[in-house]
Structure formats: structure tokens, C-alpha cells
């Protein structure tokens, strides 16, 4: 089933993963099966991905997330919104975030 991502939607990290900052690397570790493609994978997010992840609190919509990030990253509002949508789409497909 295709999920439509909208800037008005709110998301939060799934309880099926743990996010950790390990020595400067921001990693997401699956707790339950079905998140990784194989049984021994973990994942990492870059600085921008991490900034988005940390704003996904289930209370703020994606438009609000993008707005906060626009003060931190040098890019147009449209570019930031596209990246927020892109990342959340990927996280949602991997079941790492859930819709609030």
C-alpha cells in the first residue's frame, strides 16, 4: 500500500528502532525484524537526516520541521521541504517512523 507523505502530517520515531549517537555517527538500530533488508544491518543518517529525525516528535508537522531546519541549513525552503519529504518517505518505508 502506497503511503502519501504530506507536509501537514506528523510523524515520530517507531518504537521498533533505537537511534544512537555513537562517537559522532548517528545510527538507527532495528529492534524488531522486518526493518532491515537482512538480519544484520544497522543504518546511519547524515547530519541533515539526523536534524530531521530529531525534530520528528509527533507534535510538529513536516512543514514545521522544514521551517526549523531552514534556519540551520543553507538551502531554499522548497529544497528543504523536498528533502524532509524524501527522508520521511524512506524512513516510513523502512518502518522506522510512524504517523502520529
Amino acid at each position: 500500500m502506497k503511503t502519501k507523505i504530506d507536509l501537514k502530517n506528523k510523524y515520530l520515531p517507531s518504537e521498533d528502532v533505537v537511534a544512537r549517537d555513537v562517537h559522532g555517527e548517528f545510527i538507527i538500530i532495528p529492534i524488531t525484524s522486518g526493518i532491515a533488508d537482512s538480519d544484520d544491518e544497522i543504518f546511519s543518517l547524515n547530519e541533515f537526516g539526523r536534524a530531521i529525525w530529531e525534530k520528528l516528535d509527533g507534535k510538529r508537522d513536516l512543514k514545521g520541521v522544514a521551517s526549523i531546519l531552514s534556519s540551520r541549513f543553507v538551502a531554499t525552503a522548497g529544497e528543504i521541504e523536498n528533502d524532509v519529504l524524501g527522508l520521511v518517505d524512506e524512513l516510513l518505508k523502512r518502518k522506522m517512523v510512524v504517523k502520529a
Partner: protein
Amino acid sequence: MQTGSYVTRIPTDKGSLWKNSKPLLVKLDIELTERCNNNCAHCCINLPLDNQEAAKNELSTAEIKNILKEAVSLGCVTVRFTGGEPLLKEDFEELYLFSRKLGLRVFIFTNATLITPHLVDLFCRIPPLERIEISVYGMKKSSYEGVSRVSGSFEAAWRGISLLAKRRVPFVVKGALLPANKDEIEKFEKWSATIPWMDKSPQYSMFFDLRCRRDSMDKNRQIKKLRLSAEDCLKILVRRKEYYIRVMQEFCAKFMHPSGDNLFSCGSGHGVCVDAYGKIQPCLALRHPDCVYDLKKVSLKEALINYFPKMREMKAENPDYLSRCAKCFLRGLCEQCPAKSWMEYGTLDTPVEYLCECAHAQARYLGLIEEEEKAWKVDNWKERIRRFCEKEAPYHENEN
């Protein structure tokens, strides 16, 4: 702004996580218990299943959880549960879940006899993210139980392995080569090649350690009897001659040189091992009192920052060691280390004769030393290694 995938997948190789420096602690070993439901004569650690004194002194669930939490705070990404038999620990499931929810990968060393459908369900639902590592002691009941010395253990182990295989829980197997099973090596390897997660040949224990707590002269005598001779070890190592020589050429080019009077040329002390009773050790085998710290007095962080680095600067003082091991270029082939010295002699720097014989047997086979020659007396070792590494394999005619 972003091109390509937003999320980077990182497979098992944990080294790829960090480009330059690593966290203070990457991997933690915890011996959940020294008790085991098998009774292998070659084992360096096992205590009887019903040893109440040992069970009473083992770390509590809360204590282990605190250790795990501190390890995570230091950057640890993998915990290895070993033993004894770790699945014997009554709170294994709770500790497993706790570790996974902290974001740790869990590496389990087991004999598989206590794997149940319930545990397999758990591993399917919440995967360990590391392949379970199973010691297999024989391909038939007589050989397996000749090693494990427990009736019914063969069926139990194979039942556990089958449960994991049917539910596709990733596992790998390793062997221990003993008189009872050493003739089954081909059969074992043929079977192990059918296991989907075995990406290389199985590893074997054959240079068996003596009791690492130095707790029984009788058991040490038994272990010595079970050790294969240096010649038998060599036969096993060279059974795939071309492969062995190719690997050794690569290995020798990197790792063969005298280590001088530095005692610790291994990775010991870069990680942390916690024994079943809350003592911190630099490696699983090294329990010399000078190298072990009590978790009640010393934190993991203190051990890693203040104690283990100093320990790694320790120098050998034994004249025998200084005249032999310190000057021997077979260091890469030889398993001599402070832990082995401790187990054999109760010191950190005594040459272990058995390991010396095994290393010299390999070196003779590879043409690095002559018959009767002692490697620590060889001055032109660099030239010999260079010649060996440049030879085209196969080159040695003396294969028996």
C-alpha cells in the same frame, strides 16, 4: 540538497561505522555463567551445571543491566554473551531483550542444546543482528558425546540447530578438534557448507587452553592429553595446501616479526570482558590477578582509560622469555601471549612449550626454518619471509 538514498545501510562490518577514531568501547564480552550443561574435558572454563556456589556468586540481572548501560554510554555497539553456556542463565531472555532495546547487537556463543521453539520465536521477532555462533562437537552421537560427556546432548544440539535453520535464524558453526572427532572434519565441513550464513570454512579450536582459573591440575592433565600433537595440528592446517600457503604468504608479509619485550602485542585491553562474577578482564582468557579489576571498585571507563593502557605497557622479565619469545620472528604463527602463559604456568611471561612446538612445526613446513633450527636464533628472518612470500604456491613437496 540530497542526492541518492537518505538512509545508509551498514552491514555487519562494524569497522565501517567510523572513519578515523573509534569509540572507547566497541565490543563487550560478558560471561553470563561458567556453568555448562555439557562436560567437555577440553574446556578451560566449564563448571558443573549444578554448582550452586558458582550460581550464587554470579552477577545479578540488575548488575548486568548496569554494565550494559555503561557499555552503551561508552559507545559499545555489540555485546557477546558467552560462558559456560549462556543460555543456562535464568535471566538470559530478559538480558537479551534489554540489550537489544539499548540498541546493542547481541552475539551469542552457545552449544545450541538449550535452543527452544520459544527462544527461536524471540530471535525471529527480535533478531540478535549478529550470527549465533555454535560449537559443534561431533557429527554423530558417539563422537559428540565422547567430547561433551553428557548423554542426550547430541540430540539436543542437533534439535537446537534444526530449530534455528528451519526458522532461518542466522547462525554459524565452529568445531573443536579432539581425538573423538578429528576424523570427521570432512563430513563437518561438507555439512557446514550447506549452512547459508557460513561465508567461509568453519573455525576450529585445537590448541586447547588449560584451565583459565588454574583451578584443577587433574583437568589440566586431561586437557594436555587431548591436545593434538604439533604434527597432527600441522596436518589439519595444511589439508588444503594451496589455500593454506596463499593465506600464510599474506599473513607472514604482515604479521611476522619479533615482538621484543612488550608482553601485549595482541588486542587485549582494547575491549572489555566481564566475568560471571563482576571482574573486568582485558580478554576472556587472562585472569592473572595483576590484570583483573573488580567492577565494584573500577568502572568500565576507568579500566579502559586508566588500567588497561598501563597494563599494555608491561614488559617481560623472565630471562627465558627474553632470550626466546622476545627474539622470535614466528610471533604471528605462535599463540604465545600473557593469557596462555598465565594458564600454563601462572605467570605472564613464560614460553609455552606446546605453542612453541606448533609454531615451529608450521615454520618448518613453510620453509622458514630448517630442521632443528630455533626461530629466535635466526638473524636473516626478513630475508626468509621475503623469499617465502615471493614463491609461487604450491611449492612445497613435503606434504604428508
